[in-house]
């Protein structure tokens, strides 16, 4: 449905997107993952014909973004990072307006507006001025706007940014509900979001494609080694940190134990497992069997930064690229 080949976008001074290629199948929901400034927005803007590529090509449903922009635009629903709403319009007025400019036939217009209002849960505010709506509602109006002409492809730029946790869950459910009918690309810099909503992930950093894989493959690849935080409390009296450490190291599958700060007699360790080993049950048993109290035991998730470091480091072992330097090129 979407095919990007050797896409490069260069601004006056910097390269925002550097030779990216990927494909998205029909009906898939794909997460576009990267830190701020990685080139996510730029790639999406090229796909929506907002920006022309410097070199390379992008096709949507077989139409090239440079040669046939009109056909591409008809088939794409786009929600930019800030919902493109007019605060002085009422919700239904706005949706009717967007429907018209997107080419929804006149006879279907009111029906479509009612349908998408229902789907995006904005029907109850249809007579309210958009400027008076909360951020969450505005986002949903933005989403309703993107699907009003029932496009083949939906492009959503950070659809959950700036929402409160409750609204984030609602928006994610809404997006999941849209999958199947539409091919969806959504960008985010939050890893769990991709895990929860997407089938495939495309990871970019500093304008370059770092990885593209299914969510399961990627997480198992990254989480092959488990990192666990353990906090041990002595049952009575004092406890020697070295002793605990030694005991934890003996658990099968543990590769490394790093002591952290010890407070109020509680001993805190970070334990790393070997590839493909689940060490949490073993750790728990070891602590209990030794007669200590297990205060806390939880897996430490990899932050996005660590994932990037891992991925970029594995592709280029000599020069692990610092992710901090990747803040460039977005919001141009």
């Amino acid at each position, binding site marked *: 449905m979407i095919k990007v080949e050797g896409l490069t976008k260069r601004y006056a001074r910097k390269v925002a997107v550097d030779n990216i290629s990927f494909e998205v199948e029909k009906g898939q929901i794909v997460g576009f993952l990267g830190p701020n400034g990685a080139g996510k927005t730029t790639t999406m803007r090229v796909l*929506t014909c*907002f*920006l022309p590529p410097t070199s390379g090509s992008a096709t949507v449903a077989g139409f090239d973004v440079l040669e046939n922009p009109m056909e591409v*635009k*008809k088939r794409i629903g786009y929600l930019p990072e800030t919902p493109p709403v*007019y*605060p002085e319009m009422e919700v239904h007025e706005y949706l009717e307006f967007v429907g018209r400019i997107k080419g929804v036939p006149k006879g279907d217009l009111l029906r479509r507006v009612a349908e998408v209002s229902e789907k995006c849960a904005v029907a109850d505010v249809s007579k309210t001025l958009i400027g008076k709506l909360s951020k969450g509602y505005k986002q949903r109006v933005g989403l309703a706007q993107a699907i009003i002409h029932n496009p083949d492809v939906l492009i959503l730029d950070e659809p959950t940014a700036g929402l409160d946790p409750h609204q984030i869950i609602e928006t994610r459910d809404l997006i999941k509900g849209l999958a199947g009918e539409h091919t969806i690309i959504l960008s985010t810099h939050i890893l769990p979001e991709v895990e929860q909503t997407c089938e495939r992930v495309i990871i970019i950093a500093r304008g370059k494609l770092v990885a593209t894989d299914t969510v399961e493959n990627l997480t198992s690849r990254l989480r092959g080694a488990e990192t666990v935080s353990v906090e041990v409390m002595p049952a009575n009296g004092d406890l020697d940190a070295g002793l605990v450490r030694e005991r934890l190291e003996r658990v099968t599958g543990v590769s490394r134990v790093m002591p952290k700060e010890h407070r109020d007699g509680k001993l805190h360790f970070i334990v790393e497992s070997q590839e493909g080993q689940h060490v949490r049950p073993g750790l728990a048993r070891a602590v209990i069997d030794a007669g200590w109290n297990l205060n806390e035991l939880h897996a430490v998730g990899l932050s996005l930064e660590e994932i990037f470091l891992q991925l970029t480091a594995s592709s280029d072992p000599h020069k692990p690229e610092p992710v901090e330097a990747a803040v460039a090129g977005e919001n*141009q």
Partner: protein
Amino acid sequence: MNTITIARRELISYFRSPIAYGVMAFFALIAGYFFYVAVVYFVRRGLESSMMGQSFPMDLNEFVIRPVFSNISVIGLFLIPMITMRLFAEEKRTGTIELLVTSPLRDLEIILGKWTAALLLYASMLGISVLSMALLFAYGKPDWRPILVGYLGLLLLGGALLSIGTFISTCTKNQIVAGVAGFAVCLLLWVLDWASSFETSVTAKVVSYLSVLQHFDSFSKGVLDLKDVVFYVSVIFVGLFLTARSLESLRWRS
């Protein structure tokens, strides 16, 4: 069709914000005042000359309508930047321009829609002055044809300045900047013909030809001169053409 959709949305924005009402109220006040002054002057001169036994040509068209038209044309210079300043600047600031540009619309449809909406607001503003003209018809017998020509001239003049204002609005994200720059350009285009008052060189003639108000003179007299119509229509074309280029360059630069 799309042009009408864009224009309708633009009018909704105008009339939901204070801009339309502010512009119209200001116009009603100033144009009404000018009309009052012109009528009072006309009546007084008529009275004075009849008391002195002289005959005074009681020509409403010459002594009331013509000065009122030239005054309105100058008021337009001040109000037009206020009408055009938000057209594109606001969309660029809030990001809604992304919606328009990624919709299956041609640039020309977007531009024409916005310009048409601005022209309609300007026309409804002029509509207020029709009330004053109606008063003249109630108490006198002015010739209606020069009035029509005058209004046509005002619309052409307005259309020309609105197209320039629209162009300026595409150049910035800031409405105020667009407004001030638009006002500066309008002012410049007005004072250009002052050059010809003390110079008779070819340069001075060319410069004064470019003055937008100079071409309104014939219309205010009620004379429909093709060369002035051509002038305004070409300014409209140039303004809209520049707007189209500027909108296109947005994508290449951004």
